């Protein structure tokens, strides 16, 4: 007993002193970094906008706009506009975390160059505006600032789009005349200058809030030629291929097709075009591949993923283009100067004739017909781009695109928004209540 009494404190004292040093300073991860320069992070921001504009957002948008169709399993459900909040978790999270938040790290970095911050701003502003157009009110003023706002408030749709435009404008100030290639585009993005691309993006979002003046002003400084289009770059490796190609060929065969889509019908003549376009057969061949005998039950229209096709392994995906820039000008000027509007549409048509080596006759139409022709050209030309889904809702379905299940061409016969994701509903008490449903229009549209 005595020995025990003696031993215990000695033993304990020895052990406790050695205890701490044995376990100290071992919790610094050898598997990760705690610092990263903004020049490294900007690439992730760019991947995020590539993903935002070209992955599942674009596929959903294309199905909802009836440019494409769901063909199998979960995408069949999508084709019947059956909503599911959880499906939006990734799409929302990728844009906010990899895109907007990573951009904010760069914007907050006082040591970062003006160029890298400018690029981050152009991308971040675009993502903010686009998120607002997809979802309605979204976090903006309190977002990506976790130290101060654990649960960011939701700002109104218009204020977020305008806020996004302001960030893009600020970014344009920072990037000077840097080209995409010199401005961190690397193997990810290519095009003309960041300033041109930024202006086209600002024009897109200005138009979406009905600010035609700003849209014209920005578009005038926007992408000046097809060669300057801001597009994604792809290769032949498993995970740098065109995202439509990856989805359609590598990952989910049969899910995404264009069978009986309005776009396919317009291009193959099933539905007459407002502006007769012989070149559409060449355009159809670029976009789509028919399979089977037309009229038979097994007839399908597939996305053209072959070499040379619009959705081939290495095809670039557009983020902002000359075509869109011209069509923004056409639409924005339509109210004030129809001749100019005509001119911009015809500029697009002339360029399409070059692109497809086929006949895209100029329009001579005026009035409502001209506007319809502008919007129809935009609907067809911007295949697979999210902006089509925005335009469809913004114009109250001026084109009369039929609903996939009912065939109705009513203005509100389409999904009016993406659903707030389950991940946000679960964690943020500021999510609008009651939760808006699939067919509830957003404030702006």
């Amino acid at each position, binding site marked *: 007993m005595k020995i025990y009494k003696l031993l215990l404190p000695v*033993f304990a004292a020895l*052990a406790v002193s050695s205890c701490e040093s044995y*376990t100290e300073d071992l919790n610094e991860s050898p598997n990760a970094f705690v610092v*990263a320069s903004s020049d490294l992070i900007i690439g992730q921001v760019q991947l995020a906008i590539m993903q935002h504009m070209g992955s599942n957002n674009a596929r959903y948008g294309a199905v909802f706009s009836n440019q494409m169709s769901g063909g199998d399993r979960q995408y*069949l459900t999508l084709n019947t506009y059956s909503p599911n909040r959880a499906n939006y978790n990734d799409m929302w999270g990728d844009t906010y975390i990899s895109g907007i938040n990573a951009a904010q790290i760069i914007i907050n970095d006082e040591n970062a160059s003006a160029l890298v911050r400018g690029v981050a701003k152009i991308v971040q502003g675009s993502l903010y505006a686009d998120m607002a157009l997809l979802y309605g009110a979204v976090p903006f003023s309190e977002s*990506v600032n976790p130290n101060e706002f654990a649960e960011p408030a939701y700002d109104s749709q218009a204020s977020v789009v305008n806020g996004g435009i302001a960030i893009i404008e600020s970014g344009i100030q920072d990037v000077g005349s840097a080209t995409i290639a010199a401005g961190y585009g690397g*193997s990810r993005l290519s095009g003309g200058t960041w300033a041109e691309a930024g202006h086209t993006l600002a024009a897109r979002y200005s138009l979406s809030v009905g600010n035609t003046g700003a849209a014209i002003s920005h578009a005038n400084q926007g992408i000046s030629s097809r060669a300057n289009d801001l597009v994604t770059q792809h290769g*032949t490796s498993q995970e740098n291929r065109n995202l439509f190609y990856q989805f359609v060929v590598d*990952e989910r065969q049969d899910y995404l097709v264009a069978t009986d889509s309005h776009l396919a019908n317009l291009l193959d003549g099933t539905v007459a075009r407002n502006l007769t376009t012989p070149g559409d057969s060449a355009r159809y061949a670029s976009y789509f591949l028919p399979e089977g005998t037309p009229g038979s039950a*097994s007839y399908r229209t597939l996305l053209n993923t072959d070499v040379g096709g619009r959705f081939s392994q290495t095809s670039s995906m557009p983020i902002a283009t000359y075509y869109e820039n011209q069509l923004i000008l056409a639409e924005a000027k339509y109210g004030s100067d129809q001749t100019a509007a005509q001119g911009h549409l015809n500029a697009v048509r002339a360029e399409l004739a070059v692109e497809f080596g086929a006949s895209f006759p100029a329009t001579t139409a005026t009035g409502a017909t001209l506007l319809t022709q502008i919007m129809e050209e935009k609907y067809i030309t911007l295949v697979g781009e999210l902006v089509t889904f925005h335009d469809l809702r913004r114009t109250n379905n001026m084109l009369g695109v039929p609903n996939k299940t009912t065939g109705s061409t009513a203005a509100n016969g389409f999904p009016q928004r993406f659903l707030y994701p389950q991940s946000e509903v679960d964690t943020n008490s500021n999510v609008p209540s009651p939760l808006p449903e699939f067919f509830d229009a957003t404030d702006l549209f």
Partner: protein
Amino acid sequence: MTSAMMLIAFTALAQKTVTGVVTDDSGIPLPGASVVEQGTSNGVSTDFDGNFSIQVAEGAVLEISFIGYKTSEQTVGSADSVNVSLESDNQLDEVVLTALGLEKKKDDDLSSTTKVEVEQLQRSGESGVLQGLSGKSSGVNITRNSGDPGSGAYIQIRGQNTINGDNSPLIVLDGAIISNANIGGSTSGVVQQSRLNDINPDDIASVTVIKGASAAAIYGTGAANGVLVIETKRGSSETKGWSVNVKSSLSVDQINAEWEKQSTFGQGIWTTPVGGGAYNQSTSVSYGDEIALRSGGADTYDMSGGYFETPDGRQIGSITSKNNKTIYNQSNRDAVFGNGYTYENSVNFSYTGDNNRTYLSMSNFDQDGIMKGNSDYVRTTLKLNNTTQATDKLLFKISSSYTTIDSNRVQTGSNLNGLYLGYLRTSPDFDIRDWQGTNYSIRSGVTSVTPNSHRSYRRPMGSYRTFDNASGSFNYTAPVYNNPLWTLNQQQNINTVDRFIFAPEVNYDINDNMTLVARYSTDFYQDNRTDYMPAGSAGDGNNGQWEEDRITEKNTQINVFVSGDSAINSNIALNYVVGYQAFENSYRRLSAFEASFTNPDQIFLNPGNTTGLNSTPSGFTSLTRKNGVYGIINLEVYKNLLLEFTGRGETVSTLPGAGTIFYPSASVGYKFTDLVNADFLNFGKFRLSYGEVGIEASPYATSTVYGPGGIGSSWGDGLDGSLYGNPFTQSSTRGNPDLKEERKREFEIGFDTRMFDSRLSLGATYYSNATEDVILALPTVPSSGFSSSLQNAAKISNKGLEVDFSYDLIRGADLNASISGSFTSNKNNVDDLGGSSYFILNGFTSTSSGIAEGHPYGVLRGGVYERDAAGNFVTNANGFPNAASEKKIGVGDPNPDYRAGLGFNIDYKNLSFSTLFETSQGNDLWNGTYGVMTYFGIHADTAATSVNNTGGAIVNSAGESIPNGASFRGKIADFGAGPVAIDHRWNTSNGGGFGDVSENFIMDGSWVKLREVTLNYKFDQSVIENLNLSTLSLSLSGRNLFTWTGIEGFDPENNLTGASRGRGLEYFSNPGTRSILTTLRIGF
């Protein structure tokens, strides 16, 4: 006075020498048995041969006792010789092991500890220790991963209590802390092993299951899931010299449940609800024409676009007319499944000398699975244990082992390359046996040849390739799903493991009452996993994929303690342990991955067969340590009152913000046998204990980090950062420097009794525990910039009842029969989840197993149909229910209401018979396979045809009309808006497995199993002696022979996500097995 004197004189006169032999009931001498004259201090011990010699008077009573045997009283008569045979009484002195591996009488145990003996463990002939424990102790839940050879199992003691921490019990083998890692376990890939199963079950002497926190508390952080204390064989302590035991067994495995596929309709698409489907040779679904109505004869082919040539020269072209009426379900099945065979051979040598004991064993376990192909598991083990008494005070012990495993695994689960996914979806009119050959493709009049072409039902002319001159590589067009025979024969998943465990120990007796014990142990393994998919495999494997993972883990421990006892006074006895323990875990995983083989025409299991862009290495390293001081004090007051206090103070490297962590525990027990003083009661003890243990954070969770980026959607498409300039990104999980330990507090109360001449033993325990500050990656608001943040935010509680009993029905010389059983009911509840509503543990976006506040751990979340306030379906214009826009948490609960085991043993002379039934009741599961087989029109249920007898036209879910009186493939149902037709339209939307609803596939997964049945025959002594043997026995066993369950198609005990935390999911997981085995044991 005179008479008194005379009596003394008489007594003195009558003193004589009595000699005798003390043996056990089988006649084996018992050395060291005590022979004492009753009421005196006159006593002797028996020698090595059981002989004794004692001076006593005639009429004296001798008490002969030996540990583990009932004490015998013998009155000395006129004879000078008294031979005594002691009756075994294991229960009386049943010994359990403490967390430190020290022996303790079960009667003095103040917590609920059970011990599983070697015989019980071995009877099932399972390859793994874990599976062998199933049903043998209350409070322990064992779930098999699958029937794959060498498959691991999930073990959970007293319910789940952590989200990110380790969920396996601490494993202490001969004092060494060893790994029971279960690396892997997701919705796809291969079924993984559990590292505890590396141990040869034949080397184990016993497994003590320590369930209570108070008993485990000396290990502090790391003991929150209980402790398994394993003792390996050390050689006989009784018989000196050599003994050799040989075991040889053969086991035959069969698939124990199979899916029923329809055999009426062929591959094809149903065009209209009425009138039938049309054959289509590449569609995924089986909504085609009625096979029996075909013309018969051979199919006609169009060879103009090319063809597939089988190895025996037959050519298969594009089918222009499907004439063949043959149904291939059975022949396809027989090509995939057959009998599995396992050969197990082992030999052990033990030597007992004067001062040492040595045990040496070798074993080989060689299993070929029921899946015909690359599915096997070969485990070879070596073990050497030695105990040496160097001096009176100094004892050395060594436990060491080496295991090597070589195994081939089969891809499973939600996996285009998995066995069952392709097998079960295959249409009944497709013959999978022509799975491999040569593809001849004719394009623009030019024929190109693809060797090793992979043919499956969705690519009936086989995979083919084109050569891309620009990239200099082949591009394969592959089947959408693998042919199962391709999965089994062409894909390889090789797993090799080498493992050493070395655990020396020194015991030094400081004095009679105090011993110093110093232990060192190291457990090291390397687990190499090679996965290979040849070009032409489905999915991402189309251009070939190879991956090698090299995992090493090392667990090192130093444990030094002093144990002793002393009597404080005549009524209070003290027993104490005080010690220091340090533990280090180091882990490294280094992986290489290549895709798109440059040269796909040869199996090449090394890097260097692709371009740099497609070759990607990766790795993970971790080093964690903890150390602490602990002490145990046991007090025995007036014999019947037992008190125990334990404390541990420690520091943990993964919790630098937590400082020194202290875990206290206290227990009290009272033996009420004397108090009750009733004849029927042989022993009774009441016990009460409280304990605290902890769980540490995963390493490196305290900081927010940056790493290489990249982005991908949940659909699989994505942009790999390394192919895009390798940009960096911030982790989406926010680090937390203030993390502290998860602390489990447990209170338990129970009793242990033996009654009716110790025939009945019954123990029961009620426990209630709560783990607070459970660390979870608390989902944060994504728009705040992080998707999660690690916080000590959750609280999980378990309450349960454990009962163990045994009853000797018959005790006789020739006939013995007993019944024993265990019952466990655990109620788990996630009391608090830090305000977040749901956290996925494993599974799919559509249906998953996760945690949610107010629900039990592992609760299932899935889509449900929209319902009104009264609970009725909200139906659409066609009369079908819509999917609700939010998924429901609690669509099912995978936790059983209770589990129980019931065993019978009958011994008659040389013959013994035993059975074990086990059940799990009230556990739900998500039957995703059924849902998807419904979608594909391949499950037998989808072949039903109905006649519309409703008196009017009805519609299907697409609004297509079925006139009155018309026959259609499907069923009539009513969702509340009148009768509707359930047909392919409903199956392929929200009525099938790919819809947004999973509630219709949540099923009651309760089961009862005949876990084991064993007949063992010990050959007669005469036979054995003639053969110069010491023992010879032959046994015949059945394992999982029968399962009673409402689940059809698969073994409800299997779990898709293996030993991961996600429970209750079924999705094309590899099947379970039943087995029959014969074992021959020979002792020399």
